């Protein structure tokens, strides 16, 4: 699951990216607004410049038109455009100078323009003065010198150049403005898409985190529900284990005390026999009664050997008991080595081990069906199955051929059950728990044994995290059911989890 830190880091990165993009878009917009303002201002300036150029040109043309009309007609009415142009020209020229002064490409030619205009105006004024003074011929001659036309051409050319420059600049400005706008549009679109993607990623990360969170919560809820049941189960296991330990201690102390009672008892018997013998042996010259002599003889012949035999037997029995307890305790402490085991293989090997006995009693064993692979301790499993098979053979019912059947089932998640079913002599109801107790046996004592087998088997099974139960009908047969975790390692981990 994504950790909270990684979630925060990743979403923060996404958000930071989106914010940076947004800031970029805002910045570009501001830049464009600023640029637009500059463009607009320049456009206005250029338009003013253009109109002042046009105004000067038209004024000059008006002045020339007025001069030509007056010279042709000599009618003062035609002189009016000239008069007006002369009046308006200084202001218009000033306007043009003011508008063009900041532009070097214009101002550099302003000198030539002014010169040409001054010369033109001088020529125009002079010819008009000549005509007014009825010296028309002189005036026309003056015009014929082409000085006026030259100057006018000069003026036209410069102003046309000015107009051309202005128009070009205006067109350039519009193009720049358009290009900036389109650039901004692209940037904004790309930025918006990137913001959407970043926010989408962040939303996806958050969504995924929330989904994981919801799943985890669900799992916790489920585990909580199961926890109660598991705690109950474990408590029950513990109580049962505790009771078993108490029962075990009880049995062990009782069974160890029994030979001790014998040893102490027969030591006392030895003591009293020794007294009788010493009375006889140390009699010296004293005469002994017939009774004393008989007692001494009896002590030597019966009491002494009997006491010694019982003491020896009791010591041997104690030793056997202690060895049995040691075996169980040692195997209980043995380090388990889980490995993958073919259950069927283990069952078949164990069946082969009792093959001779089976043949002897006309018996058969049936191992059928599907067997799971279990991961558990091989030594323990071999011992468990071997003991159960041995018991089936040992406690067969006399007078009918022995039939052993083995079945395996899945017993809930992660657990396997092995049933060993026999048609033997069975176990009475009141002995069903007793058969699993140490040194206890049930039914007719016609078979050798010390009452260790099933106690040992059960302790092995418990060590593997399993359990064994028995169902039986006296005289008809027994079914021993072993349940084991299919994976010993898992089981252990699972337990430490709790």
């Amino acid at each position: 699951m994504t950790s909270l830190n990684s979630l925060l880091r990743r979403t923060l990165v996404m958000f930071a990216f989106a914010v940076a993009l947004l800031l970029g878009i805002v910045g570009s917009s501001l830049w464009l607004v600023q640029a637009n303002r500059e463009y607009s201002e320049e456009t206005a300036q250029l338009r003013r410049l253009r109109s002042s150029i046009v105004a000067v040109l038209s004024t000059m043309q008006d002045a020339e038109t007025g001069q030509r009309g007056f010279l042709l007609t000599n009618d003062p009415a035609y002189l009016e455009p000239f008069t007006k142009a002369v009046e308006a020209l200084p202001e218009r020229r000033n306007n043009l100078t003011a508008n063009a002064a900041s532009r070097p490409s214009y101002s550099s030619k302003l000198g030539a323009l002014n010169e040409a205009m001054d010369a033109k105006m001088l020529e125009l004024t002079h010819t008009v003065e000549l005509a007014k003074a009825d010296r028309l011929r002189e005036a026309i001659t003056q015009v014929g010198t082409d000085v006026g036309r030259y100057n006018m051409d000069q003026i036209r050319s410069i102003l046309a150049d000015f107009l051309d420059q202005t128009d070009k600049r205006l067109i350039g400005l519009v193009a720049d403005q358009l290009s900036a706008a389109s650039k901004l549009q692209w940037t904004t679109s790309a930025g918006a898409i990137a913001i959407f993607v970043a926010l989408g990623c962040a939303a996806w990360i958050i969504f995924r985190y929330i989904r994981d969170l919801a799943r985890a919560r669900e799992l916790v809820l489920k585990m909580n529900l199961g926890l109660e049941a598991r705690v109950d189960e474990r408590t029950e296991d513990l109580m049962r284990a505790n009771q078993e330990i108490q029962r075990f201690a009880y049995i062990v102390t009782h069974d160890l005390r029994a030979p001790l009672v014998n040893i102490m008892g027969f030591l006392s018997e030895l003591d009293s026999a020794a007294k009788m013998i010493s009375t006889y042996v140390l009699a010296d010259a004293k005469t002994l009664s017939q009774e004393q002599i008989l007692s001494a003889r009896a002590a030597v012949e019966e009491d002494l050997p009997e006491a010694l035999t019982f003491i020896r037997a009791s010591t041997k029995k104690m030793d056997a008991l202690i060895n049995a307890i040691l075996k169980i305790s040692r195997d209980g402490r043995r380090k388990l080595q889980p490995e993958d085991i073919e259950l069927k293989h283990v069952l078949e090997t164990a069946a082969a081990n009792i093959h001779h006995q089976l043949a002897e009693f006309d018996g058969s064993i049936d191992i059928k069906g599907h067997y799971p692979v279990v991961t558990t301790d091989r030594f323990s499993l071999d011992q468990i199955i071997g003991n159960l098979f041995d018991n089936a053979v040992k406690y067969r019912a006399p007078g009918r051929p022995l039939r052993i059947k083995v079945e395996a089932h899945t017993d809930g998640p992660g657990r396997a059950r092995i049933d060993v079913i026999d048609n033997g002599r069975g176990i009475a109801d009141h002995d069903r728990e007793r058969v699993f107790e140490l040194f206890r046996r049930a039914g007719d004592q016609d078979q050798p044994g010390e009452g260790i087998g099933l106690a040992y088997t059960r302790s092995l099974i418990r060590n593997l995290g399993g359990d064994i139960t028995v169902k039986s009908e006296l005289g008809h047969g027994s079914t021993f059911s072993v349940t084991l975790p299919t994976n010993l390692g898992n089981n252990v981990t699972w337990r430490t989890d709790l």
Partner: protein
Amino acid sequence: MRANGREVTIVMIEDDEGHARLIEKNIRRAGVNNEIVPFTYGNTALDYILGPDRSGTGSNDRCMLVLLDLNLPDMSGIHILEQIKANELTRRLPVIVLTTTDDEREIQKCYDLGANVYITKPVDYDGFATAIRNLGLFFSVIQLP
């Protein structure tokens, strides 16, 4: 030791031969000379007391006193006690429980089931011998059916 004019048989159910021998010796030393029938297994003892069919009819005209060890190899002495006390024909037979354990609950259980006396076999022999000899005294005062 007699009851209703008949000799009383002592039925001793004890799997430990040494214990059986010591009990017998001490009973004899206490001056009790009744016949002692020993059993090592619960099953054979029940066969003797209640009959192989467990009906108890065979015990009608017999006078018996049962010395019972609780830990037998084939069944629990408690189970034998239950069987004897549950049978109408044998429930009046005196049963003396003789065992190595002194577990309070077990003693109580035996009395609840109708045991007449509960004796713990002490490890020190003097105590053991005294307990058995006291039994001899007990035999002389006990009401036998």
